[in-house]
């Protein structure tokens, strides 16, 4: 049995939970077994996970799990895996999942592979799975030798598809240990999709000249429903908040569409964004290295091109 941890935010499931369930379903198929989903704490609509391939949904409905403590979560998940007879546990490569994967590996005596982005294969009894390494500059295939296995799935690795029907939700009775960590406050930007999950990203660099010019970037992002990002010097200069910094030493992302505006395309920047499916570069320097990594390029002054692009996007949105 494969068990996926379907995360919620304020009791609601997001796309990442459906993507992970669908990935769990595909993994289960590759291994010749079934996929169950585990839901922790307050949650609404857990039965929907069945549509994305969970044959069973287990719910541990204890409000103590509404705040995150990796130690308590690990004990609960490992106990649930045992009850469900699961030997493969998959979490998202999210702030929650990253805090859990290594712990689960130790607790379950399981071989772990973090940040995978493809469905595992089982050939001649050998379990292999692929992950990006060197900040997206290469891939590595990992072999997991132990019976128990734990994986974390990189966001935006596959498009969730409906493959079944709503599942019945079974309440699972597992002891929830007292948390050693007290959560004082949770602050999230409302409205925008966070960068690691965003499918559309509009990113800008030092070519913007100063923070006062970001209006055109915000407007384009608004029109497209995209999330904004930036290069490192822009965040270092406090033109933009640190959480927008993408690259090798910032957030690594793989959206469907990445707009790089006034960014030169240094190797450390490319490392965090080159897994994006489509890359558009807008730069006035035709020699900018980013053009070599781009699918589409516009050589021009961003202060002219971006407003024009925004108008074209608006027109497209109105027509479609």
């Amino acid at each position: 049995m494969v068990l996926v941890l379907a995360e919620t935010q304020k009791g609601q499931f997001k796309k990442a939970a459906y993507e992970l369930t669908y990935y769990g379903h595909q993994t289960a198929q590759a291994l010749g077994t079934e996929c169950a989903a585990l839901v922790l704490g307050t949650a609404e609509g857990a039965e929907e996970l069945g549509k994305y391939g969970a044959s069973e949904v287990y719910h541990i409905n204890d409000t103590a799990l509404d705040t995150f403590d990796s130690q308590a979560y690990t004990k609960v998940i490992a106990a649930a895996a045992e009850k469900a007879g699961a030997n493969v546990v998959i979490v998202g490569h999210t702030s929650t999942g990253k805090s859990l994967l290594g712990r689960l590996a130790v607790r379950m005596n399981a071989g772990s592979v973090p940040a995978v982005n493809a469905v595992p294969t089982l050939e001649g009894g050998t379990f292999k799975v692929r992950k990006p390494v060197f900040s997206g500059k290469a891939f590595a295939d990992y072999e997991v030798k132990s019976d128990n296995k734990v994986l974390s799935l990189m966001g935006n690795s596959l498009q969730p598809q409906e493959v079944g029907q709503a599942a019945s939700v079974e309440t699972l009775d597992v002891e929830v240990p007292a948390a050693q960590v007290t959560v004082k406050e949770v602050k999230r930007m409302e409205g925008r999709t966070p960068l690691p999950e965003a499918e559309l990203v509009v990113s800008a660099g030092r070519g913007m000249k100063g923070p006062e010019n970001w209006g055109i970037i915000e407007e384009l992002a608004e029109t497209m429903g995209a999330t904004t990002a930036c290069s490192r010097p822009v965040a270092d200069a406090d033109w933009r908040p640190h959480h927008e910094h993408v690259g090798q030493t910032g957030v690594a992302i793989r959206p469907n569409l990445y707009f790089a505006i006034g960014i030169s395309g240094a190797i450390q920047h490319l490392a965090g964004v080159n897994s994006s499916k489509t890359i558009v570069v807008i730069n006035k320097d035709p020699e900018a290295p980013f053009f070599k990594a781009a699918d589409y390029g516009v050589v021009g002054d961003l202060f002219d091109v971006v407003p024009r692009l925004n108008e074209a996007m608006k027109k497209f949105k109105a027509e479609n």
Partner: protein
Amino acid sequence: MKLLVCVSKTPETTAKIAFTEGNTQFDTSGVQFIMNPYDEWYALVRALELKEANGGSVTIINVGPAANDTVIRKGLAIGADEAVRVDAEPSSALFVAKQIAAYAKKEAFDVVFLGKETIDYNGSEVGAMVAELLDVPFISYASHMDMDGDTATVTRDIEGGNEVVEVKAPFVVSAAKGLAEQRIPNMRGIMMAKRKPLKVEPAVDAEDLSVAVHYELPPEKGDVKLVDPENMDELVRLLHEEAKAI
């Protein structure tokens, strides 16, 4: 407070990524190595700041061969008091975590710091493993951290925001951008580092349960398609019809 900072050695960010032995080994020829930036810039510096404010000691630990001593000496030059190298090839995250946990347990450290991930394997696993092996709390992606006695208040980055938590030592914390400002070692630091203790410890037994067996480079990008800057309708059309990205 006894603070332990885990540092790893990674290829320099502009290093050419290539593989040898039938794509089963990373090709290290001509590659320059550095201390993993998250370990150096944030984890180590915040540990030093806390020591400077509250007293105590900062120890660096690395799991690796003698060639790693240059990276370790840099950490001493930045200001750590002493260093330990566990003399073994860091063959997997679990192997490394078991070495660190064994040492941390023996020496009873109050806080174990490490970077949020290494820039080569991008695993983000070792911290959580060490915490589970020690059965202590783990706070990942810390971008702010203060200590008052043995209680820490830590801000950790989460998707689209952050979370403020309180935790009592002992615990493990992984460092993200914002936790501290990079420090450049000065001449005095470099001179002093030569005289600071660097202990070499034998490895404890640990198995690798998952290992990389094959590497591949991504396919080369085709040529960029240039679009007339006057004609953004065309770009939008291509993104919709050809790339199917919008």
